[in-house]
């Protein structure tokens, strides 16, 4: 009995120690590329299936990955889909635990943050052909990968926001065509007052939401070097532009969805239900509406032009290689594959716009609205490339909301935002 107790103790202790050791140790290192008999597997995380979208995952898993594996017999690709809302959290905790995949499809706003923390491989250094690959993409998208003089990713897919309108609402406003300028919007505003139809709706006041207004209004968020916001974000031009929106909000022409009411009707429901006349949104909306509102026929047109022209904001994803990857050579081959017309056009067919302007004409054959997005992308700008991009979004929302609610002036709100953004850019 005594002997068996001791033996049991030893077994339990050994098991506990080995379990702990297994939890603490990292996987075995392996060479960068495999052979047909002994292939390496690249792990790839993304959020193509967000919102239950199986089309994009199918294109990737059933067409593109098999094509890549056929052309590269020593390499297998294992794609894992993670909901967009939890991807950043999953990446953060996995990075902390040393369990990151080889390749990640990252929101372009996250790249500087991960680069700052040493999680990513600087591709402009590790890939000898990086320059020639990046030269084929939209410069605005390439710029989102820049951190302290090095590029940490390649553009994978892109999007921007354009004006989307509901013809029934336009008819109610007595106009036949979507508003092309700020002045057209003002005309619509006076006609829609009291009609129960909002002139414009959006779901927040972050950089993604407010930047198209500011740039089209002729203003800037920061100086060119993105080191200072004071004097730019709080300029008289921006005060005038934001005041225009605040006036519409106070007249009930913009719903409180803008100031954070989670119970308000979302833009994807409000537009087809003729509650909202216009919204700014991306190319993915077509897929959502075709399923939920098959009879709805949205009209896509450029962002209404102000004194600064029609300027929208660049969105999309970059593909990055993690520093912890033990299959870097194989992963780089996959990265190159994502830049081919085969990959870009196959994903464009499912709603992910190509980052290669030369393919825009081919892409437009899949859906007519793509042309509007491609044209808008020619003048679209990227948000501030900073590791503190999330904090900048929070600053913009928290300072601008009181101005819309009448608790501060637009000038005071923008002054406060500018000084807080200054501090974040300095940090």
């Amino acid at each position, binding site marked *: 009995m005594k002997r068996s107790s001791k033996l049991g103790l030893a077994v339990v202790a050994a098991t506990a120690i080995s379990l702990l050791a297994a939890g603490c140790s990292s996987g075995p290192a392996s060479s960068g590329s495999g052979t047909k008999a002994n292939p390496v597997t690249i792990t790839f995380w993304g959020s193509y299936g967000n919102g239950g979208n199986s089309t994009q995952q199918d294109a990737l898993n059933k067409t593109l990955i098999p094509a890549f594996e056929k052309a590269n017999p020593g390499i297998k690709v294992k794609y894992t889909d993670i909901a967009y809302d939890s991807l950043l959290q999953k990446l953060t905790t996995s990075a902390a635990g040393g369990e990151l995949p080889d390749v990640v499809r990252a929101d372009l706003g996250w790249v500087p943050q991960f680069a700052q*923390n040493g999680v990513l491989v600087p591709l402009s250094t590790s890939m000898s052909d990086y320059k020639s690959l990046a030269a084929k993409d939209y410069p605005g998208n390439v710029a989102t990968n820049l951190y302290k003089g090095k590029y940490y990713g390649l553009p994978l897919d892109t999007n921007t926001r354009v004006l989307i309108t509901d013809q029934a609402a336009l008819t109610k406003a007595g106009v036949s065509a979507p508003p092309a300028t700020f002045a057209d919007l003002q005309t619509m505003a006076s006609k829609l007052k009291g009609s129960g139809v909002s002139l414009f709706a959006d779901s927040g006041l972050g950089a993604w939401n407010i930047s198209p207004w500011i740039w089209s209004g002729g203003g800037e968020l920061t100086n060119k070097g993105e080191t200072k916001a004071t004097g730019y974000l709080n300029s008289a031009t921006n005060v005038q532009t934001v005041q225009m929106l605040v006036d519409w909000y106070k007249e009930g022409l913009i719903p409180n969805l803008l100031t*954070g009411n989670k*119970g308000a009707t979302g833009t994807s429901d409000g537009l087809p239900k003729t509650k909202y006349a216009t919204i700014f949104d991306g190319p993915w909306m077509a897929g959502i509406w075709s399923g939920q509102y098959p009879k709805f026929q949205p009209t896509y047109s450029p962002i209404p032009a102000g004194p600064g022209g029609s300027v929208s904001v660049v969105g999309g994803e970059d593909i990055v290689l993690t520093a912890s990857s033990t299959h870097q050579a194989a992963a780089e081959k996959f990265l190159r594959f994502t830049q081919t017309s085969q990959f870009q056009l196959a994903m464009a067919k499912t709603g992910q716009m190509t980052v290669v302007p030369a393919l825009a004409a081919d892409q437009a054959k899949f859906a007519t609205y793509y042309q509007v997005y491609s044209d808008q992308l020619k003048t679209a700008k990227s948000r501030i490339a900073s590791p503190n991009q999330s904090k900048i979004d929070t600053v913009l929302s928290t300072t601008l909301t009181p101005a819309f609610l009448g608790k501060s002036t637009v000038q005071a709100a923008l002054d406060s935002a500018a000084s807080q953004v200054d501090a974040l850019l300095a940090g």
Partner: protein
Amino acid sequence: MALTTTAGRATDSTSVARPGPVSPPRRRKRRPSATPYLFLLPGVVIFVVAIIWPAISAFQMSLYRWNVFNSQLSQWSGLDNYVRAFQDPHFWLSLSNSAIYMVATVIPQMVIGLAIALLLKRKSPSQPIFRVLFYLPVVTSWVVVSLLFKYLFDDSGLVNFTLHDFLHLESTNTSWLAERGSALVVICLLGIWKGIGWSMMIYLAALQGVPEALEEAAEMDGANRWQRFRAVTLPAINPATVFLSVMLVIGGLNVFISVQLITGGGPVGATDVVLTYMYQQAFSFSDFGYASALAVILAVLVLVLALLQLRITRTRDGEELA
């Protein structure tokens, strides 16, 4: 624990036997067995790995500008994160929201839970059905009921439909989730609705233990129903009340899922509670040092409150016993 008890008993028996006229036969001292430790080991390992170690790590992280991606790059900051928290108005706002939620949900859960338990104490054919119905929200997923409440209190949800279109009590639809006050009301209502069943169950169990003889004696003495409840039932179920209040206060201060899903802490952070603010600092801003400091402050606050509650109730017990 088991070993201590066994050893204690052995010592007691020896001391009792010592004054006797005949010395007991000298017994061979039993060597302590490893078996109890073996049974304890898995639980202790899990507790240390899953609770103690992360808690110590969180405290360690709170003393640094913590780099979650490469901990070796973290910079020592001493108590800076704590000083920052006490000077951060948004932390105080989130703490006040947590406190409001705690106060607004704990008392109704206990009072309504006790009332239902008293109603369901009597045996009737429908009693098991009602027990299940009242307990159902407790076992339902927080995610599901949070989303359900979000839809109910949507601008065009069932609540507004009832108040505006059906009962005509409102001239326009209320945006329940657009302002701090009304949004907190929605979150608190969910907390109360979901928690009543649990309080009811604890009280039901406690009520089974109230001696019928005491109730009968009080009745014989001419006590009416309210007097019997106040003088007999309430003191008898006091341990359950103490247990419930401690657990509900801890749970109330740790509210997270419902806030995250119903308002996301919005509009613009107005309904943030300590845990949603902590989550934002950690996972949106990667500021794990500050987030850990917030976690430590909350843990200390919960611990102090729980100890205070136990101390107050223990004193009262002591007085009653005296």
